[in-house]
Structure formats: C-alpha cells, structure tokens
C-alpha cells in the first residue's frame, strides 16, 4: 500500500490528522506524522520529514500532504536528501487541503490504489461536500 506522510508546522495538528485519517483507513496502512520541530516548537523540519518518508514507504511509494509554506519547501528538501534514488522517484507531494486530502488519500491507499491514483484522488477534494 502507498504510505502517507502528514507534514504540519504543528506536531499536534499532524498527529491529529493521522488519528482522523486512521478512522477510515486499513490499520496496516502507514500514515506517519511529521509535525513541528524536535523540541516541540512550531515549524517544519526537513530531516524529520525525511525519516518519516523512510518509515512510510513499503515499496509502493509515499504521498505527502502538508499544511502550507515551509511544509512543502521542507518536504522538497527531504526528498532531495534521500539517498535511495528509487524512493525519490516514488514520493509525491499533494497540494490538497490537509484534512480532506489525508482522509481521501487514506481511503484510496487502503484499497490498494497506486501512488498516481491516490495523488489524483486528493486533487479532487476541493469539490467534495463536507456533508
């Protein structure tokens, strides 16, 4: 299954999104939070994100969802820092809204969709109804 990494400036927000996404996901799915800095401060940490990518990948690739700004910049660096060239090629960053994107990605990844399809599904979330 495609793994997911949830990047947020806030550790609690990242962990909360993971908790929510598991409600709809196969418990074997890897959904890894990478929020905040090591000391708990608000911010994003490219090295924490890189470690999360390594944990999230089971060979089928990883989709990353971030909150904004540096969550995307730090994820781009985390990908650059990966030593495994093959893994680099199977990480994608989705610009979808974080909560809705994480939930739809968890559902699609749980049914075994490949990375490109999980990624495409998250791009549709802005047109989803909240009810």
């Amino acid at each position, binding site marked *: 299954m495609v793994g997911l990494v949830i990047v947020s*400036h806030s550790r609690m927000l990242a962990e909360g999104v993971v908790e929510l996404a598991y409600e709809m996901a196969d418990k074997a799915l890897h959904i890894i939070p990478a929020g905040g*800095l*090591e000391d708990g*401060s*608000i*911010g*994003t*940490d*490219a*090295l*924490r994100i890189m470690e999360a990518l390594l944990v999230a990948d089971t060979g089928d690739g990883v989709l990353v969802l971030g909150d*904004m*700004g*540096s969550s995307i*910049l*730090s994820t*781009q*660096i985390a990908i650059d820092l990966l030593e495994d060239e093959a893994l680099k090629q199977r990480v994608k960053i989705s610009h979808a809204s974080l909560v809705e994107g994480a939930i739809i990605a968890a559902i699609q990844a749980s049914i075994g969709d490949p990375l490109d399809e999980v990624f495409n599904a998250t791009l549709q979330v802005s047109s989803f109804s909240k009810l």
Partner: protein
Amino acid sequence: MDSLVYATIKKITEKIEQNKDFLTDLDREIGDGDHGINMTRGFTAVLTKISLDDDLDISSTLKKVGMTLLSTVGGASGPLYGSAFLKASAALKDITTLTAPVLGKILTASLTGIKERGKAVKGDKTMVDALEPACDAFVFALSQNASCLECMDQAIAAAKLGVEYTKSIAAKKGRASYLGARSIGHQDPGATSVLIILEAIREVINRKG
C-alpha cells in the same frame, strides 16, 4: 576548521540574536511573527554543532550549517537559508581558503539555492530582493579588482536599497502574500535578515584587515 569561516558564522549568530526582536516585529506586521525567533534558534543550534577544532574544510562546514538550519529554523527561512548553505557547500569542493572570489562564489551559489527552492524572483518581496542586487554588486566590484572589503561594501549598499525597495511592493510569496496590497509599506523580514548576515560577514572581513 578555517578560523575566518568560524568567526563569520559566530558573528552572524551574534547579529541575528541582537536583531531577534526587530526581525520578529517586522514579521509580525506581515507574516507569522517568528522570523527573529526562528533564525536565532537555527543559528544558535549551528554554534552548538560546530567548533573551531572540528576537522572540516569550508565546504563541509557550510554543509553542516545548512543541514542544521533545515531542521531547526522551522519557518520557510529554514529550507531557504538551508538550501543557500548547501548550494554554497557544493560550489566549494576542494577550496581551502576564504578569499574574495570564493566569497563571490558563496553568494552566487546561495542566491541560486534560494531562488531554486523558493521560486521567487526580484520584486516578490523576499530575501531575493536584497540578495540578488548584493550578489550582482559583489561580482561587479570583484571584476573591477576591488578588495574583498570594497566588494562587501558594494554588496551591502545594494542590499540596503533592496530592503528599502521591499517597502514599496506587495508580497507575492509566503505568508505575507495572503495580505496582498496590505503588505505594502512594510519592510520584508527575509530581505532584512539577508542584509544582517551580509553586515556580519563584512565585520569579520574588516576586523581581519
């Protein structure tokens, strides 16, 4: 480690710390109010990770600085300054002495790193508005056979104009871009920290004489 490189990093940290509240106040006006705090946290962490006794060449030192900034700054300036130092590190393989042409290489590579990562161009109200003119001025002065200190003076004069220019424009990148035209009239914190770093470099070169 090269003592000049170490002294420069130490001076940058000192000046960033001195300007912590100033940078944070600027960022509070148009951003999330943490630039001074973030930069201070990042460079303070750098100083705990490097020591004058380390057996590191200039390239490896800059790499260590960049990697530390990536994981300790927190805001967008972390990946941006981190990329600047990593790009400079990659441009300096096998270089053992910090000279004016080497400093020119560092500035040019830093600018490339920041632009590639942030996709900002001049006029977006970012670090680039200070660093690009500074870099151009430094390289031009160097081509006129100016001394390292004179090159830095030109770079700083250009960066100052760049910082002033950011007051007149609306932000197109980062958190400040959410404010649109309301960001006009405010000086960009990122461009300001670029200027502070350049001034720190100049102080060390000046002291060296």
